[in-house]
C-alpha cells in the first residue's frame, strides 16, 4: 500500500512517501529521522500532542494552558478533552507540573505549560 503524508514534525512540512508491505514500512521524502518515525507512527497508531486550557481557582490566571507530555493516541483525544474540561486546578502550579498523571495507563501525562502563583 502506498500513501503520501505531510510531516508535522516541524514547520518545514516534508512530503513523505510511504510504502507498506506487510509489517515493513518504507519512508521517503523525509529530511530528518523525525519524519521517518512520524510516518511509521501515523500508519500504525496515529498520535497528536493535545493542548487545551483547564479552569483554575486563580483570579490572576483563570485558565491554565496544558499539553500532553507526548503525542497521544488520536482515537482517545475526545474523551481526554472531556475530562480536562471538567477539571479545576488549584494554584500554585509551575510550568511542567503534572495535572493528570498516566492517562488511562498510557504513560502519558497532562502537564501545565504556564506557571501560576
Amino acid at each position, binding site marked *: 500500500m502506498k500513501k503520501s503524508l505531510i510531516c508535522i514534525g516541524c*514547520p518545514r512540512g516534508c512530503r513523505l512517501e510511504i510504502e507498506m508491505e506487510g509489517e515493513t514500512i518504507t519512508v521517503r521524502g523525509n529530511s530528518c529521522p523525525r519524519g521517518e518515525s512520524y510516518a511509521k507512527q501515523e500508519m500504525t497508531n496515529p498520535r497528536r500532542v493535545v493542548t487545551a486550557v483547564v479552569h483554575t481557582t486563580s483570579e490572576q490566571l483563570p485558565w491554565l494552558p496544558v499539553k500532553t507530555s507526548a503525542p497521544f493516541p488520536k482515537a482517545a483525544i475526545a474523551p481526554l478533552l472531556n475530562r480536562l474540561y471538567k477539571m479545576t486546578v488549584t494554584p500554585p502550579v509551575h*510550568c511542567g507540573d503534572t495535572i493528570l498523571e498516566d492517562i488511562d495507563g498510557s504513560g502519558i501525562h497532562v502537564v501545565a505549560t504556564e506557571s501560576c502563583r
Partner: protein
Amino acid sequence: MKEEKVDVAVIGAGAAGLAAATVIAAAGRKALVIDREDFPGGILRQCIHSGFGLKYYHEELTGPEYAERATIAAQKAGASFALGCTVTDIQIDMMGEFTLVLLSAADGVRKVHADAIVLAMGCRERNRGNIATPGTRPAGVFTAGSAQKLLNLEGCLPGKTAVIVGSGDIGLIMARRLKWSGMEVKGVVEIMPHPSGLARNIAQCLEDFGIPLWLEHSVTRIIGRDRVEGVEVAPLNHGEPDMSRSFTLECDTLLYSVGLIPETELAQQAGVLLDRDTGGPLVDANYETSVSGIFSAGNVLHVHDLVDFVSEEATRMAHCVLARLDGAPSAEKVGNEVGSNLKYVVPAFHTPGATTNFSFRPLIIADEALLRAESEGKTIWEKKLRFVRPAEMISVTLPGELLGHAPITFHLQDTATR
C-alpha cells in the same frame, strides 16, 4: 508623577522585546520592558498549541512555555518591567534623549527617559474591513487571533458553528481549537490557489478533522441581522466571483485569518520612516530606524512566520543597540533592493564590510530555487534553496567581504526541473 531614567526602553514584552531586553540587561545596561498587558509574553501566551522553539530552544514548546522561558531569561539578566502600561507618546529632546509618556491604571501618567528605544510592538491582524467583505454587520465576526484570546485566555467559546475566511496559520490553528472545544467548523475559504498557512497545519488542523478548504473561493456576502446566520461563498474565475456557482454556508461565527500588519502607530508618531514593502520601519544593517537611537525588530519590523526567527533577529538587534550605546557611529548605508519573485528584503541597507543577515519574503512556490545577490551587474553570491513558499520567510547570512559600496539587488528564481 513617577519619573525614571533607563539606558534602553523596550516597547513590547513579546518574543522580540524579551530577547532584546535579555541581551541588553545581561551587558549591564538598564533595560525597561513596557507592555500594555499585565503579563509579559505577548501573543505567545494565547498560542497554547505546540510547535514553537525548535530552532531557538532546540525543543518543541507551546506558546506559553516559550513566553515563560523568554521572560525568565530577561528577569535573570536583570531587565525590569512596566506592565499594564501603554506608551502614549515618544518625545526627543535637543540632546537626542528620549522621553516616553506611559499611561497605566496603577500609576496614572508616568515618564521614562532613555538613551535608546527598541520598538518591539509586534503586529496586528487584518480584519473584515481590510478586505471589505460585503453584507450586513452582525455580531459573530472575529479575527482568528481575537477568537483565540477569547477561548484560550478568557475561556469563552465564540459561537457554535464557524466558517474561517483566509487560510493563514492562526485560522488553521483555530479550526482545530474550535473542533477540540466542541464547535463545528464548516470550512476554510481562501482566495488564492494555494493555502497561505504551513503545510503541516493544513494536515493536522484541517485534514485531521475533515474540514473542507475551498481554494480560489471568496466570501461574497455576510448574512444575518443581529448575529451572523451564514455566508455566501463563490468560486473565483480569473479573480472575479462566479455568482452562478455560489453557495451558502450556515454559521453563527466568522473568523478572519487574512494576514498581519506591523503595528506602527507609535513608530510613525516618533517620526520613524516606514518601508513600503514590509509596512514596518525602514532600518539599516544595525536595525536602527531613520531616527537615530530608535531600533526595531520582530513582527513590527516585518511579519515573521516563526517566533524563533523573531527572537534571533531581536538578539542581533540588541547587540547593535549595545554597540551604539558604547559610542559606535551609526551604520553606513548602502541600499538593497529586491528584483524578481521577492516581496522585500530586511534590512533594506547594508554596511560595506559588515557580515549581515538578510530576511526575504518570497512570492513564488518552488521546490527548488536559486537566491542570487547581484551588484554592478555581476552575481556576487548565490544559494540554492529547497521548498520555497510565500508562507515561509527566507533568512540568509552574507559575509562582509562580499558587501561593498555598490547597491545589491536580490533575485529569486524557480529552478525545479519538472
